[in-house]
């Protein structure tokens, strides 16, 4: 309830238009790669989302971080999460998996 009040007052500031800068519907049912605050990395099939960019992913795989260094993803160390809800507040980057590939390099040991 407080949230909706907040949204309304925001709307007054920003004008009536409030569209996301990216239309996620084009990724519906396709694999996306999502980075979260704190370093978590997940790949899954986009099944849903809302205006706050909360996401629903299915067949989700999490790529585990180095326990010593959260910025480092351990190659080949993954776990299957299945259906997950991702908080929009923690979302850092989102990209289609299609058309990108993992390159070898110093940042990916």
């Amino acid at each position: 309830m407080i949230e909706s009040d907040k949204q309304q007052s925001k709307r007054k500031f920003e004008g009536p238009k409030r569209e996301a800068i990216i239309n996620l519907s084009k990724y519906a049912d396709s694999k996306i790669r999502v980075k979260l605050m704190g370093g978590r990395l997940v790949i899954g099939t986009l099944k849903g989302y809302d205006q706050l960019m909360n996401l629903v992913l299915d067949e989700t795989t999490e790529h585990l971080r180095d326990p010593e260094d959260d910025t480092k993803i351990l190659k080949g160390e993954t776990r299957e999460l299945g259906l997950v809800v991702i908080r929009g507040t923690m979302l850092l980057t989102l990209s289609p998996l299609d058309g990108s590939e993992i390159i070898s390099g110093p940042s990916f040991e």
Partner: protein
Amino acid sequence: MSIAEILPLEIIDKTVGQPIWVMLTSHREFTGLLVGYDDFVNVVLEDVVEYDANQEIKRHAGKMLLSGNNIAMLVPGGKRI
């Protein structure tokens, strides 16, 4: 392509009364029964097991209010493996 298929909060809502697995931005995770949640996705859990870096560190018999501030992901059904 059709618009917004499944709403994320709808999934959470359907999980009320069932096991859920909550992951924070850190290596900390919680599993338990989802009692409820609010607009900020603070969650109330019951019979919670708390993990850090996949190690069980504490069990909580009663209810717990977990701050939504650092919740990154929620997995309906509870922790696997």
